[in-house]
């Protein structure tokens, strides 16, 4: 197995804010790794350090076998990076944006590559349209096409589907899986749980620290969270009442049902015992990735304080 990303002990501070603390991350070639964590947890900073946009204060490692500190230039030629904000030229056309990217990377067969990319996107007819006039989903697909035009070996995506509708998100992810199937390594940050579940593995970062790592099932199992699902009319209204009980780490309403989770099974069962009555009906369920993440977020916050 070859590691596309292999970094150890990355640190980065802005002023007195220690944004990334001792992050180590290994991603195998050809894998899609989901990068998760609350807002402001250091995901973007980590991605920027990996592609040479930021210099780490300390730490070492390599991307695609190239040193992230001394060979940032070479990494830039072999990696594709898609920023959080749409950052193509809105006042250039779709085709001109692709051509610019092709020229900046000094690609050969420019015209062919741009035409192929347009065809893959299904934007041949709209090639002369200004990029700024595209809808959110199309903008992201164009940005992806631009970031992969030079056939990078590593793709870093920073919340690529924020604010994009479900259908466009699905198309986007189908494209990412197609790219990974060709051997491309993808590190993608996201807040969507369904997207996290579509990744081969996930890394969870909170307050600058990497706190969970593995496949979705492993991460769920590692937290040792027990979750009960309660159903019944008006049960969602009990959420704030139940969440205050000892043994309950969190309670979240999902429409007509309520997820109650805790790490201590006995205490949790004791807590919901009074509510095991008509018209409610309880059953133990597998905790969802979301339950696990919210749990991780809360515990890491506690550690931080």
């Amino acid at each position, binding site marked *: 197995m070859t590691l596309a990303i292999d970094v150890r002990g990355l640190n980065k501070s802005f002023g007195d804010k220690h944004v990334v603390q001792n992050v180590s991350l290994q991603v195998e070639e050809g894998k899609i790794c989901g990068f998760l964590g609350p807002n402001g947890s250091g995901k973007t900073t980590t991605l*920027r350090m990996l*592609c*040479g*946009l*930021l*210099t780490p204060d300390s730490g070492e490692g390599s991307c695609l076998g190239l040193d992230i500190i001394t060979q*940032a*230039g070479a990494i*830039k*030629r072999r*990696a594709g*990076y898609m*920023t959080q*904000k*749409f*950052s*193509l*030229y*809105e006042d250039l056309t779709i085709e001109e944006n692709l051509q610019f*990217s092709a020229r*900046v*990377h*000094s690609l050969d067969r420019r015209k062919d590559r741009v035409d192929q990319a347009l065809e893959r996107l299904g934007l041949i007819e709209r090639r002369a349209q200004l990029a700024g006039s595209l809808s959110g989903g199309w903008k992201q697909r164009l940005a992806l096409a631009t970031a992969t035009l030079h056939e990078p070996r590593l793709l870093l995506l920073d919340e690529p589907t924020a604010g994009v509708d479900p259908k466009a998100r699905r198309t986007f992810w189908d494209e990412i899986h197609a790219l990974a199937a060709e051997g491309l390594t993808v590190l993608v940050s996201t807040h969507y749980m369904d997207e996290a579940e579509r990744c081969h593995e996930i890394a969870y970062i909170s307050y600058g620290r990497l706190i969970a790592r593995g496949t979705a099932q492993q991460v769920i199992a590692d937290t040792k969270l027990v979750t009960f699902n309660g159903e019944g009319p008006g049960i969602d209204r009990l959420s704030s009442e139940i969440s205050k009980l000892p043994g309950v780490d969190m309670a979240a309403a999902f429409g007509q049902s309520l997820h109650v989770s805790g790490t201590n099974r006995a205490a949790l069962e004791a807590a919901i015992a009074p509510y095991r009555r008509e018209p409610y009906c309880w059953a133990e369920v597998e905790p969802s990735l979301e339950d696990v993440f919210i749990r991780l977020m809360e515990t890491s916050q506690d550690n931080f304080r």
Partner: protein
Amino acid sequence: MSGFSATRVLAVMIKEFKQLTRDRLTYAMMLALPVLQLLLFGYAINSEPRHLPTALLVQEDTVFARSITSALRNSAYFDLVAQARTPAELDDMIRRGEVQFAVTIPGDFTRRVVRGDQAQMLVEVDATDPSATGAAVAALAALPTQALGADLKGALARPTAEPLFEVVVHRRYNPEAITAYNIVPGLLGVILSMTLVMMTALSVTREAERGTMESLLATPVEPIEVMVGKLAPYVAVGLIQTAIILVLARVLFDVPMQGGWLGLSLGVALFIVGSLALGFLMSTVAKTQLQAMQMSVFYILPSILLSGFMFPFRGMPAWAQALGEVVPVTHFLRVVRGALLKGQGLEDMWRELLALVAFVCVVTALAMARYRRTLD
């Protein structure tokens, strides 16, 4: 929820005030601009310059010549800064712009004055900027009586109505004192500064503001490549502007073009590159397009007021002239006016060209040092 609500106005007002004070640079500009303008307009600008540098060529050593010399020395308008030995030397001084006035007292001056035989002294004026010399030229009318009144006594005394000698004023380079001849070439410097500095200052901050800079930095493109690639189109813009201004100056305003094309071309090239690099430097400092805009205004203001474009450079007090020497436009204006109006060659304007070279080097070096290839 209709009508005019004072509470709602207050809400908007408070928000506006807070935003105004949040942007430090805007805040500073609001306070600094009026102060700067007051100081410049109030103290530095003087539309009736005195103490203009004057060179003297005396071709006879007589009492009268010395009297005229001391009369000039005593006048507030003229500062005798040089004594020329030959007419050619005197001519060089005025062509290079080292002096504003060149005074010649001819060899037969005393003889003619004593004889009452139409004695003349020659005052050559560098009239490229008519407003700089108007008052001084007017003051020359009183010179004969002031200078020689005391010497011509007794047998030499004359009826006062008759002038003792004639002051021949020769306005060179702009004999009809047409202001446009001075302003139009000067506009070249001001227009180039305004458009080029502002456009480049905005072009990089625009990328940073829209977020495209992040994508650009993630590509293999090097800082020098970004700078050259970004500035090259504006070099073309600057050259087109120069061509338009020169053609219009000739066609509409009849501005004389005496030559000096090599110096002019060099000056234009240096000035365009320097202005672009300055804009680029500003954009590496400014965080928003608004800030970049304000910085360029801050640069353009002294370029107009202190460069000698609008008001005579020599009319300003010494401290303002020293400040003016730091403004690149000052040197560019001297190159353009020198070339077009006086036909100066490289040997006359090399100092100004050197100043422009220094401007380009310093600003480019600073811009390169400030431009970051990362987001740190």
